[in-house]
């Protein structure tokens, strides 16, 4: 074979700076307890970004966008639509938002507190009590307004 028979080709040694950076970043690579987590995080981000990048590249190369007035018009079963499709929600729905806050979001916050309860001090208990009382005020108001009764 031409070019020095028997000599194994090896890449040129990396510069001092590169070797320094490599050592700093990956000196305790495999033994670090968070290493696998980093790998999984990078994989998750790549899993999200790769299809988006591929779709964009495909659109640029093969499949151009072709918008026109009728295509972008608001859909109303084939009829011409008057006005915008964005409508304001009725303000009476705020009651449902308050009830949801009281029953759902509060219980979500109470669950980890209940699990870690025995290890926490009195200050944490007081802070949680303030939180619960704030939401109880919302519950009392909804109760007084008669929202909790059927019919």
């Amino acid at each position, binding site marked *: 074979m031409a070019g020095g028979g028997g000599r194994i080709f090896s890449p040129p040694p990396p510069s001092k700076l590169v070797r320094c950076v490599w050592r700093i970043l990956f000196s305790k690579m495999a033994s670090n307890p968070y290493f696998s987590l980093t790998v999984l995080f990078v994989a998750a981000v790549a899993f999200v970004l790769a299809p988006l990048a591929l779709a964009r590249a495909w659109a640029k190369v093969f499949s151009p966008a*072709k918008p026109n007035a*009728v295509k972008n018009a608001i*859909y109303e079963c084939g009829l011409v639509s008057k006005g915008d499709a964005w409508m304001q929600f009725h303000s009476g729905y705020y009651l449902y938002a308050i009830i949801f806050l009281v029953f759902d979001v509060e219980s979500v916050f109470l669950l980890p507190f209940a699990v870690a309860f025995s290890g926490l001090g009195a200050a944490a208990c007081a802070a949680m009590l303030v939180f619960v009382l704030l939401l109880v005020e919302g519950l009392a108001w909804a109760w007084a307004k008669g929202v909790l009764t059927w019919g």
Partner: protein
Amino acid sequence: MDEALKTELGRQGIFVTTLEELYNWGRRSSLWPMQFGLACCAIEMIATTMARYDLARFGGEVFRPSPRQADLMIVSGTVTKKMAPAVVRLYNQMAEPRYVIAMGACAISGGPFKQGYNVLKGIDRYIPVDVCIPGCPPRPEALIHAFMTLQKKIDGQPLTGEGRPRHLDAGARGEFPVPVYGEHDLEPASNPGVWSAPKVKR
């Protein structure tokens, strides 16, 4: 690539394909029709989606209510002149790539009601039709055959070059003008870019 080489490699467990084949396979195996039934042919279309003649096996599982989410419009039934603007508008609102199956005699040419004053003599006067199914109404097996014919057509569409489909061609027209339900007839009576009256030799 040579077919014999392909099969030989396949026997060894190596799968070889081209980007074009993969793209077309993905497109034809998940053709989502739009919920669009006009008349009696719609009943046969519904029967095709149900248990006995299951269309879901061919990829037409979900019939989308919105044209934005559909690839295929099965025009099943008589298209009246009052409904024609809505049909063309819905076709325009579908996202590319989009295909049309004219199911039944009425959608192809007006059918048994051709002499009706309000019957549009074929939806291909306004929108390009890919597959026609003759019949009044065609049996569910005929609709499945049309589906498979459309799948074969999609398989043969190239990715680049002259014969590439409309959605890959930036210069090809994407908007089909919507007719207006005028006083006596639809205005315009047909779309000259899509349909021209057959010349009768007497």
